[in-house]
């Protein structure tokens, strides 16, 4: 049962679960699609995440209690069993060296060789849970437990665009150069975000991602 929580005078958080379960992820995707494709009046912005959707609205244009009711009804309708089409996206990655400055440190922390880290990371199938942090940044589920490592003790001021990174149970790709605290193990030339494209973000929630090592 989803909960609709007021988090500010102009935002609700629809909570499906406290943990990032797969079922919560599916419901987040369905609610996000429902609100995006048939937006209630006064909707301003949608922030889907692992198990929640934050809904920003204009409180001068809609009664908050009415919107909360509408969100609760929409959230209930996410319990469908229909299969979603699955899209698989391959991301070519140069691992290690200047492209992946933390590869050796991840190897040290995990007790694996650098080659084993690469094989493990590239051997797994990932699912895009949501885009957040910075434009087009995919939060990926599916990182093998052997690669779970702590993040950098002090974030880098600048992580290069295309950096392929891991932290804790999470994996991701930095689409643009930003500060960041995840362990960077490789880099891709794939463009993950371009505001000039009709679909600015390359990846969407629900997509499957495979990393392909290249030289």
């Amino acid at each position, binding site marked *: 049962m989803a909960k609709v*929580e*007021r*988090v*500010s*005078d*102009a*935002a609700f*958080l629809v909570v499906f679960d*406290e*943990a*990032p379960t797969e079922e919560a992820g599916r419901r987040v995707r369905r609610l*996000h699609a429902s609100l*995006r494709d048939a937006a209630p009046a006064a909707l*301003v*912005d*949608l*922030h*889907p*995440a*692992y*198990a*929640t*959707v*934050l809904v*920003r609205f204009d*409180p*001068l244009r809609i009664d*908050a209690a009415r919107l909360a009711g509408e969100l609760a009804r929409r959230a209930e309708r996410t319990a469908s069993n229909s299969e979603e089409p699955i899209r698989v996206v391959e991301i070519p990655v140069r691992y290690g060296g200047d492209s992946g400055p933390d590869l050796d440190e991840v190897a040290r922390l995990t007790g694996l060789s650098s080659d084993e880290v690469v094989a493990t990371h590239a051997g797994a199938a990932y699912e895009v849970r*949501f*885009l*957040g*942090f*910075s*434009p*087009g*940044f995919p*939060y990926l589920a599916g990182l093998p437990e052997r690669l779970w490592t702590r993040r950098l003790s002090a974030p880098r001021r600048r992580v290069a665009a295309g950096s392929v990174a891991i932290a804790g149970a999470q994996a991701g790709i930095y689409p*643009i*150069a*930003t500060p960041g605290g995840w362990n960077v193990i490789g880099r891709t030339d794939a463009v993950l*975000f371009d*505001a*000039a494209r009709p679909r*600015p*973000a390359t990846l969407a929630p629900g997509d499957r991602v495979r990393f392909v090592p290249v030289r």
Partner: protein
Amino acid sequence: MITVVAPGFLTTVQDAGRPGFADLGVSASGAADPIALAVGNRLVGNDPAAAALEMTLVGGTFRFAAGGWIALCGAPAAAKLDGLEIPGWSVQRVRAGGELACGAMTQGARAYLCVRGGLDVPPVLGSGSTHLASGLGGLAGRALAAGDRLELDDRIVAEPASRPVDPSRIPGYRPGDPFRVTEGLQSSWFMREAQAALVATTWRTTDACDRMGLRLEGPALRLQAPRELTTEGVTLGAIQVPADGRPIILFVEHQTTGGYPKIGCVISADHARLGQLRPRTALRFARVEADEAVRLLREQAQAIDAIVR
């Protein structure tokens, strides 16, 4: 056309922002003080959402190729037009070849230069606002530099206003008043002392205050017990508390999601004043209910509508 003679400390093109792309990881950005932007645009007869220049702490110097009308709103910026001091919150006539020189702001942090017609920059995801952290919008996604040139748009909807505006008549816009906050979803995770300290403390802004967020100095706000929050969507004005206990108010270029617990959220009617907080400035918080916050926002919006004639 406007030529940037000197950019000032940090000057960007801003409009009412680009909401609607948080699901791509893009926060709305837009003017840090949307009241100053909206009033300035109304003064020169623009659409209130037209693009203008947002100057930070120290204003810039600009030359106007053609004659026109301008308004400077927000923090007083010691502005001189062709060498003569001009007041803020009023319409000023600029001659062809005229030069506006702004200086250091001593009260408030941001001044807005609104030009009749608005600034013409290529829209990115529907908005001209600069998102510095993402390098999107405005002039190539960056702050202005000397020698930059800006063309004017034609977002004119009315004649220039005949009278100046008194910003002290806008409810919720008085410097020094407490920032009103609603409860956060994780407020109860914090120790009782921390919840009390939020509103009992005179906080100070640190030097780490920018368009992404404002980091505050004061007592550490501690959780009752260590607890992990699954990353969730975050919104403008949310007061998040990292493990060190030092609160950060999320601002216009905030990240769209975050994993730190939130102890409260600054109400919408007080967001514009966040944009006027200087580094190392005292501030306090006061609690309100969300419904009261909406009433305060409506009162403020009606006052802004009524104030520019």
